């Protein structure tokens, strides 16, 4: 029998393969390619403060709370505040809402903010000092956020605040039953920590404003919209008539008294609802909010209105005051008109019109005006301002309620941040035109200060936002909301100013459980799906830290798209290959 050795070795070698296929670059087959650019989650694109939601959720879901708080603080100095009072546009935009129920982002933000009691301020490291000096006029959330981000960018920031303490409406507008002062004060600790010069009790008039423009390298006006327009009707001189913001300021300072038994509040926004709830807490027995439009048009949030109703506040819609009625200089009541919706106005809402002959008098010991405030600043009322807060004076910036746009705490924080970034670019003499396209989360949302400081692009700055269709729900199971709010009984609430709502259960457990519900849209958590499912071994694992996405091997990837389809959280997209 012929032995193996008897065969012609060369002939045998002809049958044998000699090498693997690495020389065969199948990448040339591809007409689509995966891309791993940092994308914005739908929630983050909707958060006016630019909170890095998916990022902090990733850390919180793993119980790394301190890291989560640090991530938040890179963008927002006041998570414990937003986590209480924000109307949560993030939750309205949350991709998980299409799966079961939106993630309780605000609750997680609140819990993390409050963990500052344990972890401290968790501030980002400030940039090297620039020697530039910036003045911020107004110490509300917009001015504070602006000073915070200016200081983090290495500038010397000085805040001029008319009030005795910083906080603006967070202190003298929003009552403690919605925002306890400990929560506010804890987060304001950054003022000292960052060496921000805080000049309280200092109201800037036109003369000081001019001097600031002379003496500082940049000046930011964040003076709010605190001028009450009044009702503009007969009887505003009567005793028993109050301006909403003044009444709230007194109530919040514990100095309001003698409001009477029956109170009518005129308005439909935050001020109206909070004034009504404060009146109840100050001993009023019958409190009604009268609004000239319908419930659906009220600017106040449903949550607040519901809480107020539970406490006994009555809401009367389609009613407006014609005049205040009094006797001997003292208010007795209000002459009310019934209103009906007329033609739509600029806001798209139907303009209320009085119904002829509908006038009637309602009794009241006190009437509180609660119309929205008018913006004011000592630099000249008619300032032209762009969406970055830049004005026609290159060293003057404007933000918060004092500038046009939404009037919420989160938008004030976001606006202050934009103005800080814009001012930083001005102070450094950089070219803003080249930068600005890279700064907005999701291409149109809030600015990312963390990205600006790091010289990187904000998540989804090119407009890529992870939507529900980009999430692969096969990798998630349904789970009811874990972080739930519980509220004091209405009786307990109206007996004082104790905080009404708290998150049920143990904070760490609730935060972790709720964060675990988050899909972490656009945020690579190194799950390994793409690595495991690539038929061409062409996913190169993640090499960098939090949020960094993997890469792909262009020599071999055939562009099948499995990685993009199987990424649970929309990190990977497929784009046309350039050839």
């Amino acid at each position, binding site marked *: 029998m012929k032995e193996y050795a008897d065969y012609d070795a060369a002939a045998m070698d002809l049958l044998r393969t*000699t*090498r693997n296929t690495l020389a065969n670059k199948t990448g040339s087959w591809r007409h689509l390619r995966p891309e791993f650019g940092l994308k914005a989650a739908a929630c983050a694109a909707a958060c006016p403060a630019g909170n890095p939601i998916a990022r902090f959720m990733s850390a919180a879901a793993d119980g790394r709370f301190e890291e989560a708080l640090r991530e938040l603080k890179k963008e927002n100095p006041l998570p414990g505040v937003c986590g209480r009072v924000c109307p949560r546009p993030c939750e309205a935009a949350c991709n998980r809402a299409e799966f079961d129920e939106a993630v309780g982002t605000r609750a997680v933000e609140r819990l993390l903010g409050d963990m500052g009691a344990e972890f401290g301020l968790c501030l980002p490291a400030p940039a090297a000092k620039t020697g530039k000096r910036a003045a911020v006029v107004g110490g509300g959330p917009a001015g504070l956020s602006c000073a915070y981000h200016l200081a983090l960018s290495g500038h010397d920031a000085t805040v001029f605040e008319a009030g005795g303490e910083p906080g603006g409406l967070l202190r003298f507008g929003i009552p403690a039953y919605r925002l306890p002062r400990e929560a506010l004060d804890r987060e304001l600790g950054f003022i000292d920590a960052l060496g921000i010069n805080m000049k309280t009790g200092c109201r800037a008039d036109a003369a000081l404003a001019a001097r600031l423009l002379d003496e500082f390298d940049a000046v930011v006006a964040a003076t709010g919209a605190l001028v009450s327009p009044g009702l503009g009707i007969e009887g505003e001189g009567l005793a028993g008539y109050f301006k909403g913001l003044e009444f709230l300021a007194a109530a919040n300072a514990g100095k309001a008294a003698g409001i009477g038994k029956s109170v009518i509040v005129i308005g439909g926004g935050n001020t109206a609802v909070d004034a009504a709830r404060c009146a109840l807490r100050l001993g009023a027995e019958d409190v009604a909010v009268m609004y000239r439009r319908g419930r659906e048009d009220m600017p106040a949030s449903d949550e607040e209105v519901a809480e107020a109703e539970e406490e006994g506040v009555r809401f009367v819609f389609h009613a407006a005051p014609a005049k205040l009625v009094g006797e001997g200089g003292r208010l007795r009541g209000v002459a009310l008109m019934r209103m009906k919706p007329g033609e739509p106005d600029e806001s798209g809402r139907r303009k209320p019109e009085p119904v002829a002959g509908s006038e009637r008098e309602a009794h009241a010991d006190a009437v509180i005006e609660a119309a929205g405030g008018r913006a004011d600043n000592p630099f000249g009322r008619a300032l032209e301002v762009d969406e970055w807060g830049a004005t026609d004076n290159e060293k003057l910036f404007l933000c918060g309620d004092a500038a046009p746009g939404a009037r919420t705490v989160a938008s004030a924080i976001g606006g202050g941040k934009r103005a800080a970034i814009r001012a930083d670019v001005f102070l450094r003499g950089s070219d803003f035109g080249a930068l600005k396209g890279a700064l907005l989360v999701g291409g149109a949302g809030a600015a990312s200060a963390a990205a600006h400081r790091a010289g990187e692009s904000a998540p989804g700055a090119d407009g890529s936002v992870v939507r529900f269709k980009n999430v692969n729900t096969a990798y998630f199971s349904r789970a009811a909301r874990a972080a739930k709010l519980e509220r004091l009984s209405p009786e307990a609430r109206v007996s004082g100013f104790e905080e009404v709502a708290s998150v049920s259960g143990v904070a760490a457990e609730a935060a972790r459980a709720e964060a675990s519900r988050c899909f972490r849209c656009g945020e690579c958590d190194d799950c390994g799906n793409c690595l495991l499912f690539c038929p061409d071994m062409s996913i190169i694992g993640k090499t960098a830290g939090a949020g960094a996405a993997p890469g792909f091997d262009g020599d*071999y990837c055939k562009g*099948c798209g499995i990685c993009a389809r199987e990424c649970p959280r929309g990190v990977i997209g497929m784009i046309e290959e350039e050839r």
Partner: protein
Amino acid sequence: MRRARIENELVSKGHVACPGCGAALAMRYALNVLGPKTIIVLPACCWSVITNRHPECCLEVPVFHTAFETAACVASGVRAALEVKGDNDTNVLAWAGDGGTFDIGLQALSGAAERNDDIIYVCYDNEAYMNTGVQRSSATPWGAWTTTTPATHFKGQEKKNIMEIMAAHRIPYAATASISMPEDLMTKVERARVARGTRFLHIFCPCPTGWRSSPDLTIELARAAVESRAFPLYEIFDGAKRRLSLDPAPPAPVADYIRPQGRFRHLDSAQIEAIQNRVDEEWLRLTKLIENNPA
């Protein structure tokens, strides 16, 4: 959840499977478990082409390319040779398509199983003869288009039940697996690896080219087949005791699986309903069997 990682990457890049090939993934997972001490016997099938043309081969283990109908008997021969050499720990893996298993190679497979030869036999099932241009096999499901069963005369026969044929041989281990569930698949390869005698794995591998489906849907379709119970995952021990690997309750509608595939495009909703009924009946039959013979 953190997924399993591939430690033994024994399929090299540059192989020539179509984009989105399910069969390529099946090999990746199997070799991860079996490791470098494995000899593959590869009959004519897509995989004999995926390796790429001589003198290249994407598989970093020894491979015998063999005739279409001979996977099992060549594997038996390789095992015999190893025994002669006193090598007991090299895995012998016959790796064949559905055509090479359900049809032309069934005789050789039955012979090896009847002798309980010590081999692992994997049928990667893409439900047609793909290598030669999508001809029907006895693994092609009812209703499917292939080039030999055109839409006007789509396949009118049910898919053959290969698992019960293998069970009838009383082999120590047989299991179905899906590339959409790599951890389950690899667990089953490991069970096969440590057992002795003839071990059979039936791995469901969507084929974008032959199924006329978008290549990015490969995993999604494999998953939909499992979740709709069209391809149940289970194991059979010694041809008798059975265990369900996963009970997709409630199941997804089988239409979710059927609709995205071009090979079923011609079916109307009544015909899809008929498939649904067949799937429901088969599930009932399988779960009864399992109930009566639990592992």
